């Protein structure tokens, strides 16, 4: 995986999904908010938690914990709203941690497994002061073998 070099210097929003520390470049994050009441939906994907009404738009909420197959239940502390292929999608995460400025030289290749989550969900690893932030690969998160 040599996608590491894709990251330039960027601000990173860091959040927690179970035991995994996940990051997204700030330009991929549209909004962060507390989860409102969901309307449960029933799709082929059990990680689709439901839909919400976000100012008149229907937004699909994805439970990242489920998506990554982590065992712990999601606390569902926050929703990170991202835009993917012209669609707003909410990522349910446990906790928003931080925002850090990442320099491009601090991005590294993803190891095989990150605290139980498959490496495919990540594009790179960012080395924060003393821990690692897994940079979320939206493409692989949104598209599972079924959606294709």
């Amino acid at each position, binding site marked *: 995986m040599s996608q590491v070099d894709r990251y330039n210097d960027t601000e990173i929003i860091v959040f927690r999904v179970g035991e995994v520390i996940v990051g997204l470049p700030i330009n991929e994050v549209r909004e962060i908010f507390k989860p409102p009441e969901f309307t449960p939906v029933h799709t*082929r*994907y059990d990680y689709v938690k439901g*839909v919400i009404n976000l100012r008149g738009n*229907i937004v699909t909420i994805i439970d990242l914990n489920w998506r990554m197959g982590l065992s712990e239940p999601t606390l569902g502390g926050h929703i990170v709203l991202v835009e993917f*292929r012209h669609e707003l999608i909410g990522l349910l995460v446990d906790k928003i941690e931080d925002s850090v400025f990442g320099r491009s030289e601090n991005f590294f290749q993803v190891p095989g497994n990150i605290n139980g989550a498959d490496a495919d969900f990540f594009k790179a690893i960012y080395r924060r002061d003393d821990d690692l932030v897994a940079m979320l690969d939206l493409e692989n998160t949104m598209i599972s073998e079924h959606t294709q």
Partner: protein
Amino acid sequence: MDELDEEVLQLFVDESREHLAGIEGDLLAMEAMTVLDKELVNKVFRTLHTIKGGAGFFDLSKLQNLAHAMENVLDLIRNGELVTTPLIVSSLLAGADTVAGMVNNLTTSNDQDISAHLQVFEQILEGDSHIAASTGEVETNSQAGARELFVPVERQVEDDGRDNEHIPEEVRPTGSEGDLPEAPAAVMSAEQLSPVAQASASKPDGNKPDTGKTAQVADQSIRVQLPLLDRLMELAGELVLTRNALLQSVESKDGASLAMAAKKVDSITSQLQKAIMSTRMQSIDIVFSKFRRIVRDLSGQLGKDIRLEISGEEVELDKKIIEALGDPLTHLVRNAVDHGLEKPAIRRAAGKSEEGFLRIDAFHEAGQVVIEISDDGAGINPAVIAAKAVEKQICTEEDIARLTDNDIIRLIFQPGFTTAAEVTDISGRGVGMDVVRQNLAKVGGVADIESVLGKGSTVRLKLPLTLAIIPSVLVGISSESFAIPQVNVVEMVGITPAEVKNRIQRVGGATVLRLRGELLPLIDLSQHLGIEEVYVDPVSGETAAERRDRLFDRRMLAEEGEIEIEDPRHVAERRQNHQSAVHIVVVAAGVFKYGIRVDELHESAEIVVKPLGMHFKDSDEFTGATILGDGKVALILNAEGVRRLTGANETRQSLEELDKVVAKVVESDSCMLLVVKNGPEEMYAVPLQLVARIERFAYSDMQEVGGKKAISYRGGILPLVSLEGTVSDKAPQKSAAKEFYAVVFAVGKGEVGLIVPGIKDIVNYTKAIDVNTHRRKGISGSLIVDGAIIQLLDLFGLLEIVDPQWTGHLIRGEIDEEDRLTILLVEDSQFFQKQIADEIVSAGFTVIIAGDGLQGIEQLNNNPQVCMVVADIEMPNMDGIEMVKTIRAHAEYRSLPIIALTSVAGAEAEKRGYEAGVNEYHIKLDREQVVASCVRLASKRPKGIALPQIVVGERS
């Protein structure tokens, strides 16, 4: 050209451009496909087919011929007889360019030389085996054909400058000037064909954006009447004012003015919405108007005599829907003219008027627009359709056997069908109905057909008024809300708990709803979608996870004996519990109907459709979502998708079998029996449907009056019938138990209770009932359950044994149970006592009997409910005259009706009677007169008047 033609022509141009916009991509995709993608080829085919049809109508023979030639090639590809090679695709692309050019420049299209194209396509058709086999090697082709091929030429585009004012500047093909080979009718050898064809195939890259742009230009502007714009401005102004008021009242926290402002916002918003929507509305006349000409021309061409009636032209629809309607309607009208209506000679032979009748009608119905195209033609022969369907492998013969005639006819909506025996110029090849269905589905419409062989056909299109907002029914399933578009809703059915058993049945694992003789698959969405079922406590309103089985499931189990019912009263109670009523929304998905069981029916509302995200891409049970008044999201159910999800059509395939099974179940429903015990060995059964309820009484409360058992009950008297002495030889045995059950039956307007010592069971008896062995009065037959013989009671027979008169009046129901009046009969002769008492009782009264005048007064004192007295005159101790005088001495008894009976008629006696205060005088044996008087005179005594005790002898 007159104005009408101009408009229709423009419509054709617009439509064709729209179709052609995508053809290039589709053709290229065809080249790339490794396996035959029928849908894709069909799409291209349909495009050309539509253009061919339109061109034929406008007499654009060149365009028509070219499109037809291309169609032929595509038909071979579609049927797998021709493999798409780069050569073929190149030729098709070149052809499509020419078609596009001709469409953009219709006036000169007939001057165009298309012979080159035609020859290429002809060669493809003729040499197909070679081309197919050699995967497009031009050499093989040329050797086989040894013929020179013409290169497609775009000559017409040079003429685009003249006579095309109606085409906007920017849509004129620009590709002609530079990048086209400047070689009209250039003759090239076959060896050269391939590169040139490819070159001309790549050329449209320059040409295509123009056509695309054109379509967009046509799409993106709309004519709006000035008054409507003024109205919009006005509303916007009002909205601004109201906003100011709203802001002000929020600031001042003035509740009253806030409420008023809110109301105003509400009203303005809906007006604004309506006005904005109406800017998108166009009258359907735009589409309808072209049919007069089409029908006239076609009928002339075909030698048919057709009278066309068009109505409802003023009906308005969303622009987008109107646009989508063009194709399907044209096809339907063509079909009707070409295949539906017969030639005059045939019509005459069939005994119809020579003039065929075609009717196109549009009207509003339940928030939708319905368009009907009906003809009085030959109709559709289901047998022909069936044969064709089997031949085309659309379905198997077994499928056909299960379908009704009309369902078979509906198969014509499947792709690959034609009703014409030969492919004609006007319609055919079986794309028609496919186009209809697909185009309608795109705008949320549905099509249905009804046809009677020899009488004619009617095609019904149902369309939503607009696309953005659809009227829907909101339903609740468990704790979730869903919207079902009204266009899909056929009806809503509420099934009372008592009916559940009969209406909802489980057959072979599937649940079906019985609706007016039809069997519909019933879908429980919570099962299919995995909705957690909740149970709403009817009292507290609290919700909890549903533990109880589905109502009908439980019933079924109970009937199968898998659940033990300890106390039959619970069954009765449950049946009356309104909370367990079942709501069903019957929806139509295309031509297929099924029921969706819902927990709650909410309001019907106009909902705004919002798209769902990518994760719903293959959840086709939902078409979108909407935001409800409370801000929550409700998903919109797609009737077709839900059907697919639940595989309800498979249920339907065996519907007829189901019907048989269910018919049996239903038959046996009449054998839902309540089994009662009269003794350890003696059991009787009564049909459960006759049982109103089951009560429990103490023997001590039972009264026996005049040889009849009764019990006071709910403020009235419940007559009781016992098995002993009627159908059972057993001696009455009261002592054993203190209590007994009364199985209460409704008889006429009244009720009768059957005394039974014990209730054994409720059984669902499916086997035949032996009507011979045990049959006698009161017993209609016998059956065997668990090895024991059970006699089936004939309730009416039983009542007749007790008292033939009684049944009669109960059934006639002349007097209500609760309103039974009490009559005091004073008569010394026991014979007459019984005679008259029976008669009066059978007329619905309660009778108290006294042996003489003194006893009569005593009874009157003891029974204030007595509302009438029937008295004999000649009696011991105190005669009738004396008794009447004594009674009448009290003012409170002045109004009490008293009739006198005597065996001696005479003027003198009568006079004495009337003097004493008798109201009427009758002869004892005239019992009918007596009863008639009772019915006429007896009425409830007013309550609250204290009746004094009558003291005998006071008067004298």
